[in-house]
């Protein structure tokens, strides 16, 4: 059975200005246990909306999302989320931020510390464990947000353009860090991006979305070997996939731009 089933999900928003805005037309797909899926789509096509529906933060207008066959009715710790913007608790240190979910679970202090130590090490911020978010750069903040989500050990990790605000170099390094963490934990990941290269480099499958109202336009299977070194990005097979995805996404971006 699939880990996650998105079954005929649609979403419209009622707005005062523009009336009814259709964000998602029917979206259906399934995600297997331990699969790394990337969602690729032009800006405004409903990627965040879809992720928020899966997280349980937004209700679909129709359709259903199921985790292990059970319908989702609200947010829960089994579906961790990393937001597009940095959402650290500003009054907590880096370590306290990472331990936030563990503390809610009532994990004893020593265990919390051990888990946090592991993820601090993974994201390379052990030296900053007692720093406050205001003293971190954007890239560091996002690393902490990822560590906080991973430390909570969710079954599914939802990531909404987590590297969107980072420069190209930091972004590349973060992709490798994330792949490293995933290869170790084999969590089910749904990763939203509008960067074609990022989508292919990370994924087992890339779901390409149409312009708003978003639906799945095409699925690209990425059968590249793992672990994936950075150099893979220039391999012929990678470039072929990239070209395919670029052509698909270009069509939709043109539509999105014309739509305004």
């Amino acid at each position: 059975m699939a880990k996650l089933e998105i079954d005929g999900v649609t979403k419209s928003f009622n707005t005062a200005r523009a009336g009814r805005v259709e964000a998602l037309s029917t979206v259906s797909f399934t995600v297997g246990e331990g699969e790394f899926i990337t969602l690729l789509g032009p800006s405004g096509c409903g990627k965040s909306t879809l992720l928020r529906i899966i997280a349980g933060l937004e209700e679909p207008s129709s359709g259903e999302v199921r985790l292990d066959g059970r319908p989702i009715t609200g947010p829960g710790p089994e579906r961790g989320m990393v937001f597009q913007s940095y959402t650290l608790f500003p009054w907590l240190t880096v370590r306290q931020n990472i331990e936030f979910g563990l503390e809610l679970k009532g994990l004893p202090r020593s265990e919390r510390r051990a888990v946090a130590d592991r993820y601090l090490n993974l994201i390379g911020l052990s030296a900053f464990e007692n720093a406050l978010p205001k003293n971190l750069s954007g890239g560091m903040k996002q690393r902490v947000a990822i560590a906080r989500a991973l430390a909570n050990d969710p079954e599914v990790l939802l990531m909404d353009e987590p590297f969107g605000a980072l420069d190209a170099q930091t972004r590349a390094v973060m992709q490798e860090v994330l792949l490293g963490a995933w290869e170790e934990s084999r969590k089910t990941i749904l990763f939203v991006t509008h960067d074609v290269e990022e989508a292919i480099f990370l994924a087992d499958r890339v779901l390409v979305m149409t312009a708003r109202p978003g639906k799945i336009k095409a699925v690209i299977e990425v059968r590249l070997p793992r672990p994936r070194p950075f150099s893979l990005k220039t391999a012929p097979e990678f470039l072929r996939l990239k070209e395919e995805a670029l052509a698909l996404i270009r069509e939709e971006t043109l539509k999105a731009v014309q739509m305004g």
Partner: protein
Amino acid sequence: MLNPKLFAPKEDIPRGLYTALGLACFLTILLIWSLLTYTGLVAPMFLPRPDQALKAGLSLLQGGSLTTDTALSVFRVSAGFFLAAALGVPLGILMGTLKVFEGLFEPVIGFIRYLPASAFIPLFILWLGLGEIEKIAVIFFGTFFQLTLMVMDATKNTPMELIEVSYTLGASRRDVFFKVILPYALPGIVDTLRITFGWAWTYLVVAEIVGATSGLGFMIMQSSRFLRPERIIVGILVIGLLGMITDALFKLIYRLSFPWLGKEGR
């Protein structure tokens, strides 16, 4: 040559210069006061000379009445304010957290806060008599409603994303309230208390106009009746000084309690 950075928007200036500027402003006011009075431009019965005010202050201090008046006024202001805070802070937090309570109370409070506290004095006297309770009620009435609305706003400022991320980390509604909304809103609440405590002082004189036999406000009114402008000045200066001290205390608490706030306040 002036440092051009001094006039760059929001740019920091040296700490010493900052203090010096404030001091210079006070001294300028003192200078203008002296110029107006010592030259005889304004008669002492309208504006007394600084030395007359100083002498009046010293004699009131020696007579002991300034100390008791001040103590009593501090008590009234604090009692009225603490009562307003004790009720207004929880209510404001509740209204800022749950729309049900906002919908219930916001319209009424929004209406009452425009009613002048001074206009209620006759009613308060009718209901509460001329004792301490009535004075405290005036100060309470003057601050409670504004305070509640400001605490509500500070609470509402909590970014929805922080609340949402905590849900995805397993927080219950209770957790969201105690572990996200409260810590985030606390600095804003403390700042609200600082500002409204200042307003409580401004209601003091109003509260002590009628039916009081002591207090700084009473002393000011009494001095006006007996044409003792130098005593009025003393009363005003004491109130200003007390306000400044409490303001500085609140700011200190703020700075020490919330080291996580950035340079821009958040």
